C-alpha cells in the first residue's frame, strides 16, 4: 500500500539523548483523511514536523524514509526539499493566535507563497486569496485582507490559516491539532470547514489529534501512537468495531460516547499501559543490538 505520503521506518532521536519516534510507518492515500491519534507526549506532532522539515534543532532523523508524491524527501538537497514541500504540502497549525505574523497584513500572508515560491503574478494571487476567503466563509474579505492579525478573532484567524493552507492547491495538508486552541463553539465550525475544504479540493489530509471524538468525525483511516511507536493502523469502522491492540481498546473505552452519555469513563488500565511500555522497551532493545 503506497500512499501519497508514505513514511517508512522513521526514527527520530534527541541529539545525544532519548528516542522520540521509533520505527514509525504510515500511509496517507491521495484524497484520504488519515488520523494520527495519541496522548500528549506520544510524538504525534513530531511526525508532522518531520515531514515538513521543521523538527526542532535538538532532534535528528536517524533512519527511515519520507516519500511524498513518489520522491524520498530525505534524499533531496535542503533547498529543493523545501521547495517541494512548499509546493505540495501545507500546514494548518495548532494555535491561530501565534501562527500569523503580527507585523504583516493578512492579504500578503496568504499570497506570499504563491508569489515568492510559485512565481504567480501579484494580482492573480490577490484574486485567488479573495476567492479562498470566500470559500472559508469570511465576510467582507477585501477588508480582512487589509487587516492585521490582532484585529481578528481566533476563529477568524484559523479560517484564514485554513484558506492560506489551501492557497497553492497542495496535495497534502497536515493539520496539527487545529481545533485544540479554540473555544468549543468554534471548534465544531472549524472541523466542518476543514472537512468541507478537504473534500472540495480533494487533498490528502494528515489529521493530528488527541481527541478520538473529533477523529471519528473526519478521518477515513488512523494510526494510534504510543511513546513514539505506532501500535495500531486501521480504517475507522474496523477500528471502532474491533480494535486489535489492547491500548486502542482501552482508548475507546475511555472515550465518552455521544449516544450513551450515561456510560462512565474508564481510564486506560495499568496492565495495558504496562504491556505497551514493554513493547516499546523490546523495540528499543532490538534496535540497540
Amino acid at each position, binding site marked *: 500500500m503506497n500512499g501519497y505520503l508514505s513514511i517508512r521506518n522513521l526514527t527520530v532521536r534527541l541529539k*545525544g539523548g532519548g528516542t522520540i519516534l521509533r520505527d514509525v510507518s504510515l500511509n496517507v492515500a491521495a484524497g484520504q483523511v488519515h488520523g494520527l491519534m495519541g496522548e500528549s507526549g506520544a510524538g504525534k506532532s513530531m511526525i508532522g514536523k518531520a515531514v515538513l522539515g521543521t523538527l526542532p534543532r535538538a532532534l535528528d532523523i536517524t533512519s527511515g524514509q519520507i516519500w511524498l508524491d513518489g520522491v524520498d524527501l530525505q534524499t533531496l538537497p535542503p533547498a529543493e526539499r523545501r521547495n517541494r514541500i512548499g509546493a505540495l504540502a501545507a500546514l494548518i497549525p495548532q494555535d491561530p493566535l501565534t501562527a500569523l505574523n503580527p507585523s504583516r497584513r493578512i492579504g500578503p500572508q496568504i499570497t506570499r507563497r504563491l508569489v515568492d515560491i510559485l512565481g504567480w503574478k501579484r494580482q492573480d494571487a490577490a484574486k485567488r486569496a479573495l476567492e479562498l476567503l470566500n470559500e472559508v466563509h469570511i465576510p467582507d474579505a477585501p477588508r480582512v485582507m487589509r487587516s492585521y492579525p490582532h484585529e481578528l478573532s481566533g476563529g477568524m484567524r484559523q479560517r484564514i490559516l485554513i484558506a492560506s493552507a489551501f492557497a497553492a492547491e497542495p496535495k497534502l495538508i497536515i493539520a496539527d491539532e487545529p481545533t485544540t486552541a479554540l473555544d468549543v463553539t468554534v471548534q465544531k465550525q472549524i472541523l466542518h470547514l476543514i472537512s468541507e475544504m478537504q473534500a472540495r479540493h480533494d487533498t490528502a489530509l494528515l489529521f493530528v489529534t488527541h481527541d478520538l471524538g473529533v477523529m471519528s468525525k473526519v478521518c477515513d483511516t488512523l494510526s494510534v501512537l504510543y511513546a513514539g511507536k505506532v501500535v495500531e493502523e486501521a480504517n475507522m469502522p474496523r477500528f471502532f468495531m474491533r480494535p486489535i491492540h489492547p491500548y486502542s481498546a482501552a482508548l475507546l473505552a475511555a472515550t465518552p460516547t455521544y449516544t450513551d452519555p450515561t456510560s462512565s469513563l474508564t481510564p486506560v488500565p495499568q496492565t495495558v499501559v504496562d504491556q505497551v511500555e514493554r513493547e516499546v522497551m523490546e523495540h528499543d532493545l532490538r534496535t540497540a543490538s
Partner: protein
Amino acid sequence: MRDLRGDVKRTLGLRLWLSGGWLTILALAALCAPLLAPKDPLMQDLFLGRMPPFWMDGAEPGYLLGTDSLGRDVLSRILYGARLALIVALVAGTLTCFVGATLGLIAGYYRGWPDRIISRFVDIWMAFPPVLFAILLIAVMGTGLLSIIIAIVIIDWTRFARVIRAEAMTQGAMDYVASAQVSGQTRFSTMLTEILPNVLPTIVVLLTLEMGIAVIVEAILSFVNLSISTDSPTWGGMISEGRTSVHQAWWVLVFPLITLFLTVLSFSQLGEGLKDRFDPVLR
C-alpha cells in the same frame, strides 16, 4: 546538551580565574609598589627623555618599558598608578553601590512618594552627559582623591538605583513577601530580610562593574587634568601625556592603556562571571 553545559561552565570558570588573577596581581603590585618599582616614579631626568622599551634600539638599561618626555620610568609610574586606580575602584565603587542600591530598594519596595521623588531625580540625572557632570563637579570641588570619589558617587548612583528599583519591585510583588508582612514583620525589616537577599546577586554584579567604571572615570578626569595633583602618577595622566606625544613615543601611551584595558575588562568579566555563578540554571 550536557556537553554544552560543560563547555559553558569551563569557559565561565576560565573567565573568573583570568580576571580574578589579573586583579590580584594588580592589587599586589599596588601594595608592593615601593618594593617592585625599579625607579622613583617622580624622578625626572631630562637627559633620558622618551627612551624606548627594552627590546628596541637605544633602550636605556633599567627602564624596562621606556621613559616619558620628562625621563620618568613608565613601569614605575604604572605600578604606582595602580594604587590610585584601585583605591578609587574600591572606595568609590562601594560608596556608589551603597547609595544607589539603598535608594533603589526604597523606591522599588516602598513605591508611593519616595519612589516618585527618587525616580524623578533619576530622570533628571539621565539627562546629564555623565562625563560633563563629573568634570563640572571636580571643577567645583577642586581636584583631589576625595573630590573624585564624591564625583563618582554623585554621577553614578543612578546606575544602581535604576536596576535595583526594578528588581525590588518584582520581588516585592511575590507571594513570599506578602506572607512575611502578614506574619507581622515591619515593612523596613521585610525589606532587609526578604528583598535584600534576593537582589544581592545583582548588587554584587553591578558593584564589580562599577569598580571598572570608577577606574575609567578617574582616567578620564586625569585625562582632562582634573584628577589629583599633576605630578603624582595616574594611568589617566600618563595616557593624557602619551596622547600628545604618541607620534614620538608610542610606549608612553601603550603600556598604561594596556593596563587600564585589562583592568576594566577584568572587573566587568568578574561581574559577568559572578552573574552566571548566581544563575541557578547554570549552577
